[in-house]
């Protein structure tokens, strides 16, 4: 097979060359756990306005964090973007981030959504309320996450598996509020309320509720928003069967997580990176998040889109989200013990 040999070197050469193009100045390098589709439009706008080129690698947060760690001080990444606070906290613990001192960031991002020392900042809020099937559930019967263990909801709740970070964060927030022991007691009852063994993603829980498998689904609001604006009539129909109930409004508030960003310790384009962070919390970017992603703006002076407004205003759990990272391993163990698949 001699013909193979001639062609090998060409792609290899191309590969080596491929690595050098992210080295020019006037740029900023991102490791992003936020999917390209959900951040690229904003980054393009940033490049348009500032002329700063944004280079992007997307991936899973933990793997990106591992990459950052092993690359050490030579890492090309300037910013790490994740879709939950726990991973940002973990990055800080791993010592791969550095504090940012920016008047703009500290004044626009509420203190519970950023690291006290400035290692990370929230960019948008991801709320995880209770969704119920209209007509089947009287919202007056609902009150809090804790009250979902009431016998009247037995076999009526759909929620995805405990392997998912959203559920882990929710449990961590409950541990922070009620303590580990009480939360474990609660979880042991809660898993018995499930209509079926956990499977699928958040959209699947919404679909299942609409199809009559359960009356209550727990899902992040942007999935509901995504379904309501979908091209697929079946998804729109399913989503229209459900309404949002904001739990724990008498108490600590509904559970939220953030998408957020941290400046890496190895950052070589520090100024550009901070400029990008500040850009991401400005009013028009925040409005875009709310409009395009169905997430809530992190700053209270920016209104969410019409769709989100229709679900009403709600009280947010003001727990400092760094706690979610600290409590996460405990939350997973607790769910293991409770038999939450």
């Amino acid at each position, binding site marked *: 097979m001699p013909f*193979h040999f001639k062609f090998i070197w060409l792609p290899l050469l191309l590969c080596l060359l491929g690595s050098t193009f992210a080295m020019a100045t006037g740029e900023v390098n991102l490791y992003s756990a936020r999917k390209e*589709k959900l951040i690229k439009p904003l980054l393009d706008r940033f490049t348009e306005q500032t002329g700063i080129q944004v280079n992007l*690698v997307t991936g899973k947060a933990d793997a990106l964090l591992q990459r950052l760690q092993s690359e050490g001080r*030579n890492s090309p990444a300037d910013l790490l973007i994740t879709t939950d606070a726990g991973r940002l906290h973990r990055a800080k613990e791993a010592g791969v981030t550095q504090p940012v001192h920016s008047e703009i960031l500290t004044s626009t991002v509420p203190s519970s959504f950023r690291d006290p020392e400035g290692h990370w900042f929230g960019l948008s809020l991801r709320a995880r309320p209770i969704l119920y099937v209209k007509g089947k559930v009287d919202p007056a019967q609902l009150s809090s996450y804790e009250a979902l263990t009431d016998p009247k909801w037995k076999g009526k709740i759909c929620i995805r598996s405990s392997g998912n970070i959203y559920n882990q964060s929710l449990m961590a927030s409950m541990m922070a509020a009620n303590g580990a022991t009480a939360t474990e007691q609660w979880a042991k009852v809660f898993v018995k309320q499930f209509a079926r063994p956990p499977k699928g993603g958040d959209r699947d829980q919404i679909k*299942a509720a609409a199809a009559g498998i359960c009356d209550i689904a727990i899902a992040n609001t942007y999935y509901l928003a995504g379904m309501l604006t979908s091209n697929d009539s*079946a998804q729109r129909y399913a989503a229209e069967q459900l309404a949002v109930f904001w739990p724990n409004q008498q108490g600590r508030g509904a559970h939220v997580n953030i998408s957020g960003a941290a400046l890496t310790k190895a950052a070589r384009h520090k100024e550009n990176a901070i400029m990008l962070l500040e850009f991401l919390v400005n009013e028009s970017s925040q409005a875009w998040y709310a409009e395009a992603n169905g997430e809530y703006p992190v700053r209270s002076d920016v209104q969410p889109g019409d769709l989100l407004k229709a679900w009403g205003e709600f009280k947010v759990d003001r727990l400092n989200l760094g706690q979610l990272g600290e409590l996460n*391993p405990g939350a997973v163990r607790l769910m293991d013990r409770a038999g939450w698949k």
Partner: protein
Amino acid sequence: MQTVENESAWSRPSIRMNAWRIGVPLIALLLSVPVLVVLSYLFEPAGEVWQHLVDTVLQDYVINSLLLMVGVAMGVLLVGVSTAWLTSMCQFPGRSLFEWALLLPMAIPAYIIAYTYTGLFDFAGPVQTLLRDWTGWGYGDYWFPEIRSIEGAALMLSLVLYPYVYLLSRAAFLGQSICVLDVSRSLGNGPWRTFFMVALPLARPAIVAGLSLALMETLADYGTVQYFGVSTFTTGIFRTWYGLNNAAAAAQLSAMLLLAVFALIILEKGSRRQARYHHTTQRHQALTRFQLNPRQSLMAFLICSGALLFGFILPAGQLLWWALTTAEESLDSRFLSLISHSLLLAGAASILALLLALFLSYGKRRRGSWPATIAVRVAGMGYAIPGTVIAIGVMIPFAAFDNALDEWMRLQFGWSTGLLLSGTLVALIFAYLVRFLAVSLQTVEAGLGKIRPTMDEVARSMDTGPGEIVRRVHMPMLKGSLMTALLLVFVDILKELPATLILRPFNYNTLAVRAYELASDERLADASYAALTIVVVGILPVILLSRTITRSRHAKST
């Protein structure tokens, strides 16, 4: 697989010999590094997290993984071997179409088929909705197979993995000397007896090679089982790593997985230690296929079309439907760059993997020293480890090397080299080689195993040099296996996700990355474009390969 007994002719002290003696273990060792990195965590203390795992979830992980493997093994053997036998040895309408079409399911990533089947057959999907509309039933009024279950996961994986068994066992059936089969028939054995008594045992190494590939891929699967909510060893690894934030325990789980696979391989090898599978004659005659009667033809047609329908037409049709009706994605220049990136990576890495597999398996065949054998085995283990874990195993040594070099250069010359290899396509292609070497290695070895050492000896006795033997004796016989190896790896890399995701350079996307990003965001319809393109790009080599195999068979029948 086969040690040449008379080594003296090969052992001329020359540079060439040293290249084999040193090169084989060296390359094998290099490719083993990521696996060894994972294994090295065995010695890292993981704390009391193990007690927690044993107390709560470990049992589930083990049992579910075993059940899944048993299910997939049954599925791929049943479908793969039967269709291979039918298309290579029997004559029935549609046979020449099935010959290549049966390979198509391998172009569909397992998690994508899982999504499409869920979309079709889930409670909220069109099939069950239609059923309820017709009958007026509600939830709980009727029984319907639950697609998102461990049985469902085994089915999904079987549907996309049976082509491994099909491909390898078909090549084996085609390569079998007709004389052997004729002898069987002349002894009064019918097609069934010939199949079970002669053809099947003779094809065993190839079938086992295909099966072990399918099972290794099953063990490494994350997307399907995670979506179906089945807790397996792989989901456990990620849960321990991400959720419990314990990388050491996660790597130890991976290492356990590796040891289990290693034990399986040794066991299989041991069980056929005495048997040799070379053919005693090269006298092939034009293949006379069993002519099936109409009833048998119908059965054969149904079996083959069933595999094709459920493995390809249904999921691809669902993807096409999504792409046409609901997707928001459009074909722009960015999309074209996804295609070219995917092609470049898959092309370069599959060719490299083939060359390495050839080099290593020849090295083993010629000088089967045990360190080389073990190193080659270890290098081939990467296939059973979840892609993300392998990617980390690549990332750590590459970054360590880069940083050490950088440190040294700074100290010596005050000049920083930064990250030389990390974050480049070199690291990524290396990861592909580690992950998919098993595929090319198994296929090439299965092909080499059929070539009798006596043929080499005869050629040598006629004063033919080693290079000449390879070129003129082995290559014509190996051609089918080599093409198979090339194609399998090519398609595997097209589909590969976790390593691509984490090791790729900035702004470098592939079809698989795009499909995954949208699918994992639960936007299946939008993912359909990229997923379909993977399928289309994968089909072309599938057809080419099938033609080559068929031709190589004809060429041999003189």
